[in-house]
Structures are given as structure tokens and as C-alpha cells.
């Protein structure tokens, strides 16, 4: 086995990036082709005529604007509440005396990996009994539960890095634990809060299973359900689907590009400094 030359390394990197990007290129191009070109074979690799018709169809005719609005409300609400609950729990686990911290962390890790289908039957019936199907609240509550475990994990790692001496000296001065948490520790882990917020926002924005069963009413659908259930009278309207997809992807792509450093350090425990 020989060491790979520098040129070889770049060749691997560029091919890998090309394989990632090619399908995206294809849906962008498809969304800009007129409907008449979509069924062509061989397909045209660049549109012969460029058009924004599919974007208008997605937003106006298919009511995709409503899906976007629903997703925005649900994701923002879930993110805010996840941040509040997870930062409190993470602070307690990292800095306060509590028994059984280790089993707690293992339990959270395992819970964070439970797929929604495991609780879906009961959650559906509970929400139905409470009259919360097809409401924002009905979707936000399970989203909070499914995103809490990971957020607690992430924020705990940030709190652990802050010296406990701050807590001790503030306590000696008579401040209570909640004030210390809110006034001293929380501002110090702002980067962690951003990262947790981005993870939760993206996870809830792309979630499909729960959104499909809980908010199935067309007026309450989120973007992922909207995109999955897009259908035309005769054939699958791919141009419109991809126009809608690109609009739905824009907010999270922008967030990902802006907060890439936080996301990568959150994914990798701070090993790669972006």
C-alpha cells in the first residue's frame, strides 16, 4: 500500500463533492425547465427554455406558502421551548448535585435514538383525546420531547467546561441557584445555545413521520408533508415539487452555511474547528 499523492487526495475530495452536488444541480435545473421539457429523453442537461413557472405554481396554486408558514410556527416554537427546558436540565446535570447522573445520560442517549413510530399510536390517541390533532400545539409537544435529549447532551458538554468555582462563590454571596444559572452561566454558553437551536430547528423542519400522522389536514401540513403529498392530476409534477423543495431548503441551507462552525463542533464534540 502506497501513500496517496496530494493530487490523488484532491481528486478524491473533488469527486466526493461532485457526487454530493450533482443531484442538487439536477433538481435546481429541473425546477427551471418548462413542464414540456420534464419528460424528455435523453434529458437536457441545461434547460432549453428557462422559466420560473414552477415556483409560482408551488407557492400560489399548490398552497405551499401555507406549508412554509406552518413549518415556521412549529419549528420556532419547538426550538424556543427545547432551549429553555434543555438548558435548565443540562445545567443541573453538569453543575448541581444529583444522584444517578450517569444512568440519566445513558437513558437520554438511548431515548434520543427512539424512532417516532415507537410512541406514535399512543401519542396519536392522546392528542386526539385532547383535541390537539391538526393544531400547532399537537405537533410542537412531541417535537419538544424528541429534541430534548440531544439538546441536553450538547448543552451539558458546554456547561461542564465552565468552572464550578463561579457557582460556589456566587452561592457564598447568597445568590440562589436559578439566578446563578440565568445571570452567570447561561450567557457564557451562548455558542452552545445557538448550536442547540440550529439542530432543533433543522430536525423539526425536516421531520416527516409525526407531521404526517398528527397534522394531515391540508391547511395544517408542514413543508415535508406538503412535498411528500404533492401530486398532479395526470403525472407527478416534478418541476413544482422541486421548486417547492428548493424554497423549503433555502432557510436551512442559509442557517447551515452561517452556523457551520457551531454545527460541526456540535456534531463532533469540538474536534474540528471550522
Amino acid at each position: 500500500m502506497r501513500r496517496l499523492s496530494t493530487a490523488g487526495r484532491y481528486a478524491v475530495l473533488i469527486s466526493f463533492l461532485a457526487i454530493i452536488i450533482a443531484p442538487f444541480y439536477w433538481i435546481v435545473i429541473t425546477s427551471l425547465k418548462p413542464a414540456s421539457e420534464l419528460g424528455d429523453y435523453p434529458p437536457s442537461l441545461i434547460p432549453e427554455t428557462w422559466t420560473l413557472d414552477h415556483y409560482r405554481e408551488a407557492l400560489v396554486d399548490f398552497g405551499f406558502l401555507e406549508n412554509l408558514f406552518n413549518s415556521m410556527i412549529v419549528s420556532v416554537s419547538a426550538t424556543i421551548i427545547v432551549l429553555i427546558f434543555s438548558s435548565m436540565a443540562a445545567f443541573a446535570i453538569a453543575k448541581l448535585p444529583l444522584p444517578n447522573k450517569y444512568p440519566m445520560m445513558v437513558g437520554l442517549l438511548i431515548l434520543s435514538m427512539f424512532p417516532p413510530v415507537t410512541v406514535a399510536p399512543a401519542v396519536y390517541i392522546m392528542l386526539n383525546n385532547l383535541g390537539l390533532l391538526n393544531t400547532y400545539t399537537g405537533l410542537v409537544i412531541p417535537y419538544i420531547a424528541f429534541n430534548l435529549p440531544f439538546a441536553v447532551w450538547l448543552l451539558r458538554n458546554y456547561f461542564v467546561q465552565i468552572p464550578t468555582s463561579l457557582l460556589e462563590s456566587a452561592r457564598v454571596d447568597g445568590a440562589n441557584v436559578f439566578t446563578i444559572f440565568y445571570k452567570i452561566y447561561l450567557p457564557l454558553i451562548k455558542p452552545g445555545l445557538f448550536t442547540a437551536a440550529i439542530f432543533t430547528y433543522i430536525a423539526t423542519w425536516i421531520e416527516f413521520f409525526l407531521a404526517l400522522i398528527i397534522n394531515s389536514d391540508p391547511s395544517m401540513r408542514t413543508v415535508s408533508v406538503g412535498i411528500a403529498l404533492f401530486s398532479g392530476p395526470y403525472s407527478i409534477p416534478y418541476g413544482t415539487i422541486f421548486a417547492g423543495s428548493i424554497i423549503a431548503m433555502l432557510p436551512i441551507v442559509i442557517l447551515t452555511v452561517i452556523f457551520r462552525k457551531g454545527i460541526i463542533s456540535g456534531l463532533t464534540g469540538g474536534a474540528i474547528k471550522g
Partner: protein
Amino acid sequence: MSNRTKNVNQQPLHHRPWKKNVPGYLMVLPAFLVLAAIMFYPIFYTIRMSLNNVDISSSGYIFDFIGLQHYIDIFTNSVYWDSIWLTFYFAFVTVAVEIVLGLLIALAINKVKRLLNVSLVVMLIPWALITVVSGQMWSYIYNAVYGVLNYVLETLHLIDSPIAWLATPDTAVISMMIAEIWKTTPFVVIILLAGLQMVPKDQYEAASMDGANVWQQFWKITLPAIKGSIAVSIIFRLLQAFGVFDLPFVLTGGGPGNATQPVAMLAQKSLFQNLNFGLGSAISVSVVFFIIMLSITFYPLIRSVVKGES
């Protein structure tokens, strides 16, 4: 960290031992309540439903206890076992390919200096991609009549005539796996790159001086150093792949026949298309069982993740 926690524990302010835990309990409480209401309680409620015939009436749900009948029904049904087999097959094959491919790519690009920051952003995009969008995208690419994949393969003379990728069971399963591998390999590469960046360079230099070849260096230095990153990737990807639903829902609808129907989709169909809540609950409970079994099997990996983070 444990030393510092002990210092807080030893504060003289607290005379009664349980009292020192009260602030901690209070701050964990909201998160615990949400998890209890949406995770723990529903799991037990789902177990209860799985032991009953659940009928929907105008006054609510009526439970009629039938014992293990739903379990007997699913365990004697080949459609159920097909979906379980597909789910395991899909999870293990995709994760194995992702880890091997991810490791090879990460090793190759580890020492690249330029472009790495831009590349990391590009690799993050599939991670943040809505799975349903990925499903629609691949269904258009795989299309038998006008799909671009057939066009590319024909141009390269790899196939003679267009293939209906999603129309036969074998090709449909492989197509679904490729779409999954495309979406998640970049995630694995990022995690493994992080591990590789922490390997001290002087270890390689010392090993080179001792005459160790590249292969020996990989086994003795690289692999032990990135064991943790590999463990994280395996656990997260395996359990996530076990719940696969979004991708086949859009790409194949579970077909042809039931060839690409994972267990989550079988449960969803029993529950929300056939409205058989008892049977669907039994399928859901079996998923919980398999996840617990996977967690126990991979507990050494999980423990190393928790230890590494502490």
C-alpha cells in the same frame, strides 16, 4: 468534573442530605415531565393497546382485552417478517457501506489543506436535506422513462437499455440504499475527520522512523485513535436507519409488492390506513424490543460514547 461536583456536595449550607438535591431536581423537572408524557407513558400505553382490540366509537376508544393475540398474528405473518428482515438488512448494509466509504474518504482528504472549509459546508447540506426532498429527487433520477441515471449509464455504455430501477424488488432495495448512503455518508465523513484531526502527528513520525509501513500505522495508530468517532457513527446511524420511513414512503411507497416496506411503514399502514390500533401497537412494541436489543448488543459502544463525553 467529579471532583468539582463533590465540592458542591460538601457545602456546609445543607444539613439534610436530600435537600441539597432540590434545586437540581427542580431544574431537571420540566424536561423530565415532557419526556415522561411523550416518551415513557406512551410506550406503556402502546403496550396496553397492543393487548387489546381498539375500536373507535363516537364516545372515544373502546378497549377489548385479547391478550397476546396481536403478537401471535404478527409473528405468524410473513409480511411482518419481511419488513423486519428488510429493516435489519437496510440498516446494517447502509451503515457498513457508510462507515467503510466514510473512513476511506476521510483518510484520503484528511491532509488536504485548501478547500476543506468549503467542503465541510457542502458535506453538511445532505445532512440538513429534508429526507422527503431526497426521496422525490431520487425517484426522478431513477425514473424508468426519463430518469437521468439511465441516460448517464447509457452514455457510459454501462447498460444497453433503460432499467426500471424501482420496478423490481432487488433493484428497488438497492436504489433505496444508494439514496440513503448518498445522504448520510458525508455526515460520517465529518465525524471521522474530527477523529482523525486529533491523532498526534508525531506518533506517525516516530512510527515511520521505526520502519512501520502505512498499513501498520493505520492499524496501530489511526484506528485506535478514531475508535470513539467510529462508535458514535455506528450507533447513531444504526438506530436511525432502523426507524427508516420517509425515504421509502416517497421513493417506492414500500413497493413493488412489499419489497421496500420497513417495519415503521408497516406499523404506519396498520395504524393510520387500516385503523387497526391494537395490531399497529403490537408492531410498534416490537420495534421498541428490537431497539432495546440493539442497544444491549452495542452497549459497549454506547458506554464508550458516554465515557468519552464525560
